[in-house]
């Protein structure tokens, strides 16, 4: 099975072969490196840009104005903060011009903690991004979704931000991408650039096929009755594991929803599940003041107050300026498995 980052690479390859992608660019995106996480190795339209995030976003917008289909990368979302006003402009071009101009750009950027990245390789970005009206924001938690969301991001004629969970980039999926070889070692031999000199290397692309994960569609990863868990990105597999362990140890079953799209989000699936279970925990790792989860929580309270059997909960990152390098910081700043498990168990057991 492909890793998440291999899935992104396969999607970009499919995009430039079949979906009209003209430019894949950013810092170290082109040869020889092909991206600091290898997401862009071997792609024929990949090129290296100056170390200039604002230039990257602006150039992507210009390419889109002139009919190109760009996928640009900000190397780490931690370095996207100086582009916020440009992201705002990219998001408002259609609205501001009353439909005169579309802005079909894809911006991908690794987000979140989990690689011992210290202050500036551990930030989360989805809460900031969720405030950018006009953008669509997605965050996959596995390889197949990464592939399907990336293809949708490319095809969608609006600006779409693909947040890639850093901690999961090297995690293998458990479902095959359509057209992917069965043997992961064979896939690696085909599309991973060799270490060292790779000037003569060319990838052997498998014949991957079209597969869209529609934007705004969540996935019910586990089905149950004790409570609803809503998450995405790095914390999603932790929620699944916590739910499975609580099922095994205590017999609790949970609806575990992988939101996949931050905006638009799959409100019908969340609402149905909350109405059914009456209990909800939202888990993400962004900081806790004005966290995107608070928006979901507000809607749950507004629209399902009388369905709730226990207080709705939100587990998230601490409101501190960053994540320190020593693991005592990371372990105690953003949600980890034991904390998620405890919160879920407490939620399932709470009796009014």
């Amino acid at each position, binding site marked *: 099975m492909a890793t998440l980052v291999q899935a992104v690479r396969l999607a970009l390859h499919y995009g430039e072969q079949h979906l009209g992608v*003209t*430019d894949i660019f950013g810092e170290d995106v082109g040869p020889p490196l092909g991206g600091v996480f290898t997401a862009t190795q071997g792609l024929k339209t990949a090129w290296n*840009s*100056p170390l*200039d995030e*604002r*230039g990257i*976003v*602006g*150039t*992507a*917008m*210009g*390419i*889109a*104005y*002139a*009919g*190109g289909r*760009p996928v640009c990368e900000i190397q780490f979302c931690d370095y996207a903060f100086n582009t916020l*006003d*440009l992201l705002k*402009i990219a998001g408002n*071009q*259609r*609205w*501001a*011009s*009353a*439909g*005169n*101009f*579309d802005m*079909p750009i894809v911006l991908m950027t690794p987000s979140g903690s989990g690689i011992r990245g210290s202050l500036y390789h551990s930030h989360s970005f989805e809460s900031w991004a969720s405030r950018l*009206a*006009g953008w*669509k924001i997605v965050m996959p938690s596995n390889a197949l979704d990464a592939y399907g969301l990336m*293809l*949708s991001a490319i*095809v*969608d*004629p*609006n600006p779409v931000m693909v947040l890639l969970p850093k901690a999961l980039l090297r995690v293998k999926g458990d479902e095959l991408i359509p057209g992917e070889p069965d043997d992961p070692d064979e896939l690696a031999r085909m599309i991973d650039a060799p270490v060292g000199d790779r000037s003569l290397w060319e990838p052997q692309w498998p014949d991957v096929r079209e597969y*869209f994960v*529609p*934007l*705004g*569609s969540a996935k019910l990863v586990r089905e149950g009755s004790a409570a609803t868990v809503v998450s995405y990105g790095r914390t999603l597999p932790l929620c699944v594991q916590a739910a499975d362990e609580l099922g095994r140890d205590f017999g609790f079953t949970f609806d575990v929803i992988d939101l996949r799209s931050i905006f*638009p*989000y*799959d*409100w*019908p699936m969340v*609402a149905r599940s909350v109405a059914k279970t009456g209990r909800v925990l939202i888990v993400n790792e962004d900081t806790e003041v004005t966290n995107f989860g608070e928006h979901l929580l507000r*809607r749950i309270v507004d629209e399902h107050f009388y369905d709730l059997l226990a207080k709705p909960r939100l587990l998230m990152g601490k409101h501190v300026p960053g994540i320190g390098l020593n693991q005592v910081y990371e372990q105690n700043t953003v949600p980890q498995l034991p904390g998620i498990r405890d919160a879920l168990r407490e939620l399932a057991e709470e009796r009014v």
Partner: protein
Amino acid sequence: MSESLDESSRPRRSKLTAASLAVRSGRETLSVELALTLFRHMVRTRALEERAIKMSKSGEAYFWIGGPGEEAFNVCLGLQVHKGAGPAHDYLHLHYRSLGILLAMGLPMVDHVRQLAMTATDPFSRGRNFVGHYAIPAWNVVPVTSVIEVQYLMAPGTALIQKRAGGDGLTVVNGGDAGTAEGDFESCLLWSNRPGHELPVLMIVTNNQYGISTPAKTQFGDRRIADRALAYDMKAETVDGNDPIASWHAIDRAMKYVRAERKPFLLEAMVSRLHGHSSSSGAQRNWSETDCVALFEQKLIDANAIDADQVRAMKAEAKEEAEAAVVQATSEAKPTLQDVERFTYCASKVDAVYPSDYTGLPTQNAK
């Protein structure tokens, strides 16, 4: 100049007995026909700017910003643009002092006023944006944004596609002198000059020597803004933007170079700012700055290319055109409650929530 320039005392006359074939500035000339075309668009631009300022003062509009004092340079630019849609034509990344460019390109006055009057018929923003914030797909005029200098970041993108497409289409980006303090200006220099990937960008700075209330000389050194091209071995020129003859030829030289060489050019035009920054600073006429319209009028009269009566008629006609545009635009429909969310998203076949336009937050009935 010994003769009085006072228009009210007597009609001005040229000392020449026969009409000239050309109008001269230094060693450069323009045909009388072209000079009169430029002058007419300059007069029209000035008339509309002055009428727009009046609207902002009378309360018919909330806010005015524009480019009185930039007419000479902007009209010369507008007339030399290769107008059309797609990479074979020129892309325009403009700022909010660009009326002269657009009127010279053929924009009906009423469209400019519609945006000022915030009507539903405003073709650029449906009454959403400030005046002069054009967005015209048919002419490659990408949306003007109030944010200073960001247009310089987008220009390399359109130019990159143009270079790839072949042909002689170029990308024009303009802005003021104060905005060059933003890193985005330097980004444009850098991205347009990547070795082996030089781009057909005509970078323009209309230098009015102010950023709102701050004189440029208190922030920048004495070096010309055009000199910033030196660091990139890039062609550059500074021109008197109050002189339409010099401006016409400077733009012509720059455009010819960019079209043929597929490399960037930085053109700095020294211009006036005749009504201050915007209505926020009163928009009062500043009589101490050079007026390009008055200057060119005198030159045309001196060359016997036009007489005072013709000038008066041309100005009256321009005022009437502006007045008619205001009368029409202010009588048109305004946006309604239903417009608030319109045009947020383009229809998408891969979006489960918003397959068509945006209708507010996702709801239970979304699917």
